């Protein structure tokens, strides 16, 4: 599926470095954009009652980027999206650090909200990232949540 004209406005980055949301959002903006919706995910101090000291993120290089681009393509086919960006960090992240950023620009807010939430729900259930929590009592791989699968299923077309 090659759609170069559309693909230009859809950016994916997997990186260890932090990101600056102001710059990412500015890059999404254009004259016809009336609305930008962004999501930022952070490392929480606490998860399911356990105190966290750091989060380690592993991914499948190559497949991750392809998976995220496919999710953006699908969002652009289903809603009126002017531009969209996904940035996801990997490696060791401290509590409070941003992990993921999704931004969507659109003429109107309904499309921007819906497409941004769609991208996050599919990223959570399809993109090959894995989180390992490091805490005072040791380390553990996170289990996938049934609630995430249910959220993604809401978007399935009949």
């Amino acid at each position, binding site marked *: 599926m090659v759609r170069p004209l559309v693909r230009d406005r859809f950016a994916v980055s997997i990186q260890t470095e932090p990101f600056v949301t102001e710059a990412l959002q500015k890059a999404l903006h254009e004259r016809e954009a009336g609305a930008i919706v962004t999501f930022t*995910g952070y490392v929480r101090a606490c998860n399911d009652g356990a105190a966290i000291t750091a989060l380690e*993120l*592993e*991914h*499948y290089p*190559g*497949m991750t980027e*392809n*998976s995220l681009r496919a999710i953006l393509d699908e969002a652009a086919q289903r809603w009126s999206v002017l531009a969209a960006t996904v940035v*996801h960090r990997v490696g060791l992240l401290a509590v409070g650090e941003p*992990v*993921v950023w999704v931004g969507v620009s659109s003429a109107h807010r309904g499309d921007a909200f819906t497409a941004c939430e769609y991208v*996050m729900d599919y*990223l*959570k*259930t*399809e*993109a*090959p*990232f*894995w*989180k*390992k929590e490091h805490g005072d009592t040791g380390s553990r*791989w*996170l*289990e*996938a949540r049934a609630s995430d699968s249910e959220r993604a299923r809401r978007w399935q077309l009949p």
Partner: protein
Amino acid sequence: MIRVRFFARVREQLDCELLELPWEPRYGTLDGLQAALEQRGEPWGDVLRQPNLIRAVNQAVVSTNAILQAGDEVAFYPPVTGG
């Protein structure tokens, strides 16, 4: 040759990130490859028989069996937890 990758908990349990296997006819399907890997003895059998294991061929998730060819890249990993 066929390249097999393992990620996250599966990678740790197998203590193996990447296998590069000379091509053999029994690797001609995904199920055949997996059976061959399970026969490597423990922990391979237990780890690859765990429920919810995800299988990908050439970086696309495969939910049933699939034909494999020399040069393919196969991955085994647990359900994803990014975002």
